[in-house]
């Protein structure tokens, strides 16, 4: 990780190095009140990382409680239907609570326990991170408060009920567009107020150092497993890996172990929403009408914003991708060209839900459906000897309400 120029080229002031940089992205841009907590977290995380007992407990729970490893499944009928590359699905949708989010929520909850913090806060967009956090808090007997935009509470009603059933308090956020960004603002306000007793379990590879690194590390298990599994199945690495990108946690987990493997194309799929104008999508890396580097919620990365530097509203049919910025490591991978980023529209994602449901009997989450949509475009252009891996980050149960409203199945 280099510590070259940032927004304003940070040079080390009191400390000897500025950690948490991904090229020029990342860093720590927070109110001073949070700095002590971030430094404490950084130290505790480094200590836990070096502790075999921490890993043993995490790995044990991932296996026995969460259900890892997840299968890498050869999607035979989807492959035949598309008529190109062989498609493998990494089945994060089969995890306990229904999405990849629990890999990270569990890791951070163990860290919180280690640090003696009994009160947990989290933000959630689609509700999957909130459910995962509520779940691990129930498991460890910790107090749990989840902030969620009111718009998201409406469209992910089922997950709101699940969180409450699990004993969490769900606090609605009405400010801004009442979606993920606004929930993060409110969670950060809570953290600033209760920082001495509270651990903030951030749900994506976002925010200030050490979060982007820590969240990525907890999801790295996805690519660790998939690499071993694809070698077992095919005796070689895939030609491309596709994952949806909200904040970027499932994608960075699915990509990470392959970053040194230059022949494996890494493709992130953002929310194309209903148009390319500002406010109609959440495609931060879109060439025209996309984001430009800026600071939002503690980190320097691509941000959808207007000319005055005000953060833009976003739109996606999927609450989990509906966010104005993106994890800083993705910003670096984007600029270096190591990963490429594309988008799928609401309509393409909904269509992909139908295709995957009917070819494989797998109903993906609307977020994951964006990755499937890209596979549907890409696979036919690839030769039959090629291998395309799709990270199915979650299952679609939470989205049945939206799907009912958005999809017309009367004709077929």
């Amino acid at each position, binding site marked *: 990780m280099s510590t070259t120029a*940032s*927004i*304003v*080229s*940070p*040079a*080390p*002031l*009191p*400390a000897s190095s*500025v950690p948490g940089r991904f090229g020029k992205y990342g*860093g*720590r*841009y*927070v*109110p*001073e*009140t*949070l*700095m*002590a*907590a971030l430094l404490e977290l950084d130290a505790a995380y480094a200590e836990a990382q070096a502790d075999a007992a921490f890993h043993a407990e995490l790995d044990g729970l991932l296996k026995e409680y969460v259900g890892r490893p997840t299968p890498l499944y050869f999607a035979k009928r989807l492959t035949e239907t598309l008529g190109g590359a062989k498609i493998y699905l990494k089945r994060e949708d089969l995890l306990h609570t229904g999405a990849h989010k629990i890999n990270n929520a569990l890791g951070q909850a163990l860290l919180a326990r280690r640090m003696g913090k009994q009160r947990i806060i989290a933000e959630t967009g689609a509700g999957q991170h909130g459910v995962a956090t509520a779940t691990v808090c129930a498991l460890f007997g910790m107090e749990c408060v989840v902030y969620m935009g009111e718009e998201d509470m409406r469209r992910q009603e089922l997950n709101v009920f699940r969180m409450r059933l699990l004993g969490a308090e769900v606090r609605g956020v009405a*400010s*801004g567009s009442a979606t993920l*960004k606004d929930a*993060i*603002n409110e969670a*950060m*306000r809570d953290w*600033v*107020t*209760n*920082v*001495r007793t509270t651990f903030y379990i951030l749900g994506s590879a976002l925010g200030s150092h050490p979060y982007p690194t820590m969240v990525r590390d907890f999801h790295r298990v996805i690519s660790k497993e998939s690499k071993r599994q694809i070698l077992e199945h095919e005796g070689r690495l895939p030609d491309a890996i596709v994952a949806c990108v909200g904040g970027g946690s499932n994608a960075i987990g699915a990509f990470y172990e392959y970053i040194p493997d230059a022949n494996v194309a890494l493709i992130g799929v953002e929310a194309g929403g209903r148009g390319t104008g500002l406010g109609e999508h959440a495609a931060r890396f879109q060439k025209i009408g996309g984001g*430009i*580097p*800026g*600071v*939002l*919620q*503690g980190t320097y990365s691509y*941000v959808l*914003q207007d*000319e*005055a*530097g*005000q*953060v833009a509203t976003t739109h996606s049919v999927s609450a989990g991708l509906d966010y104005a910025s993106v994890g800083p490591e993705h910003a670096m991978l984007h600029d270096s060209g190591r990963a490429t980023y594309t988008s799928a529209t609401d309509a393409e994602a909904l269509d992909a839900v139908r295709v995957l449901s009917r070819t494989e009997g797998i109903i993906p989450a609307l977020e994951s459906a964006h990755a499937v949509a890209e596979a549907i475009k890409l696979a036919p252009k690839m030769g039959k000897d090629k291998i395309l891996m799709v990270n199915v980050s979650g299952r679609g149960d939470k989205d049945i309400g939206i799907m009912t409203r958005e999809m017309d199945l009367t004709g077929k």
Partner: protein
Amino acid sequence: MIEFKKKPGLVIYLTAGDPDLATTLDMALAAIDNGADVIELGVPFSDPLADGPVIQRASERALAKGTKLTDVLVICKQLRAARPQTGIILFSYLNPVVRFGMEKFAHAAKDAGADGVLLTDMIVEEAAEYLKVMHEVGLAPVFLAAPTSPDERLKAIAENSQGFVYAISRLGTTGTRTELEADAEAVVRRLKQFTTLPIALGFGVSTPEHVKTVGGFADAAVVGSAIVGLVEKTDAADAAKAVGEFVKSLKGAEIGA
């Protein structure tokens, strides 16, 4: 010029553009004429995560009126022309400044007559280039110091601030409070070990009594949400007068009551 002639000094925060730019200017003038030593002109931001509900709502109103950083620079210039001696600080979240361009901003702020800059989400470790341009153009960088900041951070904050150091009185966001917390005095006392700069205490300072209490251990009080909340309740036409009277009462308790 940042100077607190009579202790405790008074720093008044206004969200620029709420209810409108012309009224912001009038309120700033009224605040100065009734005893404010320093005006903080707040640049409204879409995601004010360090602010409580009062300043959040003010930011929303100002943004709904289309207030931009460039507009805030314009009223800064007008304020400077009208009151050559007063301290003026531009107060912003980072993103509008980054978008404008840090260097360009520093020059524009200097041209507009600002004395200093406070960036809410800029910490000392990340500030090297910011400090460089502040020094180049001759603007005072003001950093926040928090009750949670350990001594080595307070030292770095004090050493890198100019004009004054802004001590946060308590954990949490901006907003009015009925009581000042014990945290407040401790952070000021710890800061004093490292600097001879004036220390202004803010967050929650809302009443004449608070200002008086702050005067017992700090050099100045920063009053933000109490003013912004007053502006919210008052018709634009009466806002300057109301702010002037309130500022006068804030100063009054220090001498009188």
